């Protein structure tokens, strides 16, 4: 099918302002938007700069805005968009460096700030084997282990757009993953870190994050569970 593809372009070494390049192309409805961008590089303009790697929705490199909403470019097919007019732009809230590449440092800084690693200084099991965890305990936090740090959620959040000091849904999700992991002992620490104005209280339950997440993580719910844990002082 014929489509019209508009792609956001910005060359920091040349352009004062961003521009849109338009391409008319013949594509298969099953093509991924990433495939379209690769066609652009192959057949029209090889200088188009974007991040991508696995091309099937697990590495998180290619989070972008397609027709105004956040997706992983490799997970959204042309036929999913229901139109032949496709606009691709970089994600919001993070500074655009070039074309579709944004500065991910603030995002990763927020992630690091919530102590996103297992903290347990208790002695290991005497036999050196695994710490026990029941299937129910494992299921408790399984949803938030799925996060690939693609930033689709955080950059779809209106609170984050208005103030990038907000730690963002992704950081809270990764904190949740450890707070509710029965093997972790620093839940209280993380709850205290998130219990501040740029932490969990910036969330207005807009639900953009849950809609944007390519891994179908129930993000708003996870944030709400963290809020509840902060208020009740109980992790359950």
């Amino acid at each position: 099918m014929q489509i019209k593809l508009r792609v956001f372009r910005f060359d920091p070494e040349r352009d004062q302002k961003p521009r849109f390049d338009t391409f008319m192309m013949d594509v298969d409805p099953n093509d991924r938007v990433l495939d379209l961008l690769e066609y652009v590089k192959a057949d029209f303009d090889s200088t188009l700069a974007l991040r991508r790697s696995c091309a099937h929705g697990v590495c998180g490199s290619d989070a972008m805005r397609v027709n105004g909403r956040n997706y992983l470019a490799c997970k959204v097919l042309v036929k999913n968009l229901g139109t032949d007019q496709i606009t691709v732009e970089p994600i919001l809230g993070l500074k655009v460096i070039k074309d579709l590449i944004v500065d991910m440092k603030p995002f990763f800084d927020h992630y690091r700030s919530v102590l996103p690693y297992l903290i347990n200084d208790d002695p290991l099991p005497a036999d050196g084997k695994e710490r026990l965890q029941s299937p129910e305990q494992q299921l408790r936090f399984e949803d938030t282990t799925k996060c690939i740090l693609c930033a689709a959620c955080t950059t779809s959040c209106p609170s984050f757009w208005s103030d990038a000091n907000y730690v963002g849904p992704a950081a809270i999700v990764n904190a949740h993953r450890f707070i509710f992991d029965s093997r972790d002992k620093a839940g209280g620490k993380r709850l205290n870190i998130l219990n501040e104005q740029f932490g969990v209280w910036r969330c207005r339950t807009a639900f953009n994050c849950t809609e944007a997440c390519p891994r179908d993580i129930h993000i708003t719910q996870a944030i709400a569970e963290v809020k509840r844990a902060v208020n009740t002082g109980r992790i359950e």
Partner: protein
Amino acid sequence: MANVHEFDVVVVGGGGAGLMAAMNASKTARTAVISKLYPVRSHTGAAQGGIGAALGNIEEDNPDWHTFDTVKGSDYLGDQDAIEFMCREAVDAVYDLEHMGLPFTRNPDGRIAQRPFGGHTNNVTGKPVRRSCYAADRTGHMILQTLYQQCIKNNILFYDEFQVMDVLIVDGKAAGVVAVELATGELHVFHSKAVIIATGGHGRIWEITSNAYAYTGDGCAVVARRGIPLEDMEFFQFHPTGIFKLGILITEAVRGEGGILFNAKGERFMEKYAPRIKDLASRDVISRSMYLETRAGNDVNKQRFFYLDVTPEIVNKYAEIDGRTRPDGTPYRVTAEEIMSKIPDIADFCLTYLGVDPTRQPIPVQPTAHYAMGGIPTNKFGQVVIDEQNTVLPGLYAAGEVACVSVHGANRLGTNSLVDLVVFGKHSGLHAAEYALGADMPSLPDDPTGFMREQIDRLRAASGSENVATLARELKVEMFDNVGVFRTQAGLEQAVVKVQELRERFKQVKVTDTGKVFNMEMMQAWELGNMLDLALITAQSALARTESRGAHARDDYPARDDANWLKHTLAWMNGDEISLGYKPVVITQYAPKERTY
């Protein structure tokens, strides 16, 4: 003038092996990780099925069986001392991962859950054994995330989005690497005593692949250009179940959960080729079986694909026929919910890319280029060895898919790659740190960034009469057709000629983007150069090996020939010439036997 940084140990690549190496090296040595991607984007995250270790949590198992299965799986080309080492260390490696927080799926008794996987057997009964430790169907993702988290906890220093383009070797010793900082185009020299290469594989040289765009074999190409040989490059695994046309991986675990392969006639064709363990035979056996079925005209719609059926009706029907039981002895019967809970990510791929619900319809699958058994030759400590006598090049290490220890020989068993990463990542890190602490800082060469700049300048100054996309397409199609699942003399010869032609034409590729900031066009052109070099080495190595073994299958030499070919290939690249040498396989316990499943 380039920026110069000094370290004891520098790790190139931020995937499972690189992060394990960094974590272990950094305990005693000043370490940095340099990666062309953010580490969490590494291809380790795509691994699905599990990490194999003989924990014996559900049924009896032990590392000796794991060793034998791996040796047999390698079609007896694996170095048995390294395999024994890896399978023994695997048990602790899995426990270490759990202690670091990896959220394994659990048994009711709270222990790490394990499931059957292709080629892993109880050596006494010959039946599949539950050896694969897993976290749903996203084990690789969890390993990558957990290791990255631990690196953050231990304050590992990262240079993210730096492309290493050359390795420095002075007086026969490693002296560091040089890289381009993608965000600024600036050149950096990383002056160090030890270098650990962990850059992964090169599946992107084939048309249909499960591999990420990043998998262009940079580490192999960089060392090959410095006169270091690459080992066993002809052995590249074609995973039998990639999504038709896309190549996206459908994990072997689907068959572990009871999925069955069917041809156009509705036959469970693996019964013919692997009568004992059928659909759980190892990958090269199945890919070859698919090729033979295609030749017999049994492929679906004559489009060279087959069906993988994991609907409850089929799973239960064949579980009954096979007499498959659960660990407690009850018959193995599943519901759609159970299947969805075991393979949620696969179901998501099928739905997203095919519009197929795997619990209701069969999945169209075809062989897809998946894993490099070959690579940079190392011993079991990760030290790079550079000739037939296994002479060590001090200070240079390799680990993970880029390395060839060789633990996978001619074919890799599923779940062994994740073990490989963790075990050899750890040991190369420890060994490199120990070496670095006992060694003096080598001197830098006179013009450390010279070769790197030369490559960049060549790409800027060329005529522009050729273009990256065209050359890449021609390369991939040629490789998939003639250096793919099944190979012939004529096909391989044609491939060598074609790749040489493409390498010649590559000299006319000109990068039009003259910018410095995120010049992805430059990087991708350079990556194509890497792919062309590795393709030539692969095709030449394959042409020379006149036997079929593991993943290297030749129509004209269909049998394994231990008398002449029980040896590893070494390939040196000298400009446009590839010269080949051979070194013996280390055999300790298991003399090569006929390999049947």
